[in-house]
């Protein structure tokens, strides 16, 4: 068991290294302008701007962000930005999961609600984020509740939750409806009400359906956070870093890859957090075979 695990880890490292090797190999043999068919570039260009050396990307991480006095080392700056974005993504994830669950409960409870709402839930995901982001910010700013002030990061979290709620709503609905008729009949025979059936049967039964959805929601929350940061301009996170560093994309191309690494990092971290959560819920996932 353990050796199998070690082996899997080993191979995944080999996979990452393999891609790096492939990158350098391609860069070494392919022409600068890549491979074009007609006017279409089918294989990427290999200039240092398009594909910096892996080594340059790594060493760049250990140089300061700028030459200004007191500037942080790049990796540390990226890490801070990643932590900031991760925090917001987690909040967006929580918001998304809660609203997705509520929606799923609504749809499970009333079948008419399901037919009425589900198509709109699907449609909601085709509305481009860039259209929603400024709206959220504008409406948020209009909220004044006593000492409560709507902050920009709240808008970002709300936008992240807009992407995160979707997989949760759909999968939770499936999960809530998953108990076989024999089980629901049993609860009916016990004269158990909707609430009891929900707590003792439907919710536990929905856990296996929920786990992949939660993971997907985490990935979506990260994407939503970064896009929203870019879109409505929240400083401190990976999103802002991406556009800020774009100014040096041609002069210092290796630097632009740093926030991408940061984005991958928070993506993987958030997936890891969900996996941890999944362990906690292991009791409800007995039927699952490890993938």
């Amino acid at each position, binding site marked *: 068991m353990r050796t199998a695990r070690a*082996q*899997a880890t080993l*191979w*995944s*490292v*080999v*996979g*990452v290294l*393999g*891609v790096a090797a492939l990158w350098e190999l391609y860069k070494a043999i392919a022409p600068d302008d*890549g491979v074009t068919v007609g*006017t*279409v*570039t089918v294989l*990427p*260009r290999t200039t240092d*701007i*398009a*594909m910096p050396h892996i080594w340059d990307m790594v060493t760049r991480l250990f140089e300061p962000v700028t030459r200004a006095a007191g500037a942080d080392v790049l990796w540390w700056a990226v890490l801070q930005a990643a932590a900031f974005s991760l925090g917001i993504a987690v909040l967006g994830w929580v918001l998304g999961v809660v609203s997705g669950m509520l929606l799923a409960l609504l749809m499970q409870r009333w*079948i*008419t609600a399901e*037919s*009425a*709402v*589900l198509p*709109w839930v*699907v*449609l909601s*995901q*085709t*509305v*481009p*984020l*860039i*259209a929603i982001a*400024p709206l959220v910010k*504008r409406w948020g700013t209009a909220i004044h509740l006593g000492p409560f002030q709507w902050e920009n990061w709240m808008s970002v979290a709300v936008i992240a939750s807009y992407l995160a709620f979707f997989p949760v709503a759909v999968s939770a609905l499936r999960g809530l409806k998953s108990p076989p008729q024999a089980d629901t009949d049993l609860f009916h025979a016990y004269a158990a009400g909707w609430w009891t059936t929900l707590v003792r049967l439907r919710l536990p039964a929905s856990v296996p359906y929920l786990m992949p959805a939660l993971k997907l929601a*985490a*990935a979506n929350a*990260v*994407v939503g*956070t*970064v*896009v929203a940061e*870019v879109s409505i301009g929240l400083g401190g996170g*990976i*999103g802002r870093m*991406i556009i800020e560093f*774009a100014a040096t*994309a041609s002069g210092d*191309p290796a630097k*632009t*890859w740093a*926030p*991408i690494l940061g*984005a*991958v990092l928070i*993506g*993987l971290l958030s*997936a890891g957090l969900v996996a941890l959560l999944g362990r906690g819920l292991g009791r409800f996932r007995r039927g699952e075979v490890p993938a």
Partner: protein
Amino acid sequence: MRGATTARTMLAPAVLGVVAIALWQLLVVAFDVAPFLVPSPSGIADAFARSLSHIVDAARVTGLNALIGLVMGALTGILVAILANALRVMSQMLAPLVAALAVIPIVALAPVFYAMFGAAAHTGRQIIAAIAVFVPMYLNTLNGLRQVEPVHRDLMRSYAATAEQANRLLLLPGAVPYVLNGLKIGSSLAVISALIAEYFGGPANGLGKAITSAAAGSNYTGAWAYVLGAVLLGALFYGVTAGIEAWALRRRGGS
């Protein structure tokens, strides 16, 4: 019974939509909200009708990118999944890469692909859409290929079937529902990704660009007319793939 079901599946969402839009219109009119704050549905409909030909043109550009991305992503997703299913090592090697791909925000990738494939062409956008499609496609297909029932595996062995035969006759057909589900998920992702990618460069004749430039001029009514176009495009992609799924599953008989 049947009538009631149809009524519920068709009518209920329509009624909800109509009520929501009516309420929206009412609020805009009642509170006299300026269109650049919240455009009214009637204003959007009006702008939509007025700019219809432009919206269709822009939707065609974005739609084509999404379509090419969808096809590329779907094909590579399926092929790589078949390989990964055949070679365990390969699936282990790919696992961290796919996990990373799944969580990289598209924004981060867009500038990179423009640099790699040229900013004056649509290639970068198509590749971004393809990557967005690849992930669910790969995961779903791999999952589908692994769902083979032991009894079917035994059957193939008892027939002394070759690996190729087993793939063609058993694994691939068995994975079809999963593949189609992946395609359905991928379809709206393709549209959204192609659209967001426009944001970061490339020819300026798609829907994404139209939305942002209308919004930048505070012409929100116009922006939302294009958003409506984007929603319809996304719905079209989703609808077509969902239709293909339903059709194929009905044809093959449920499992």
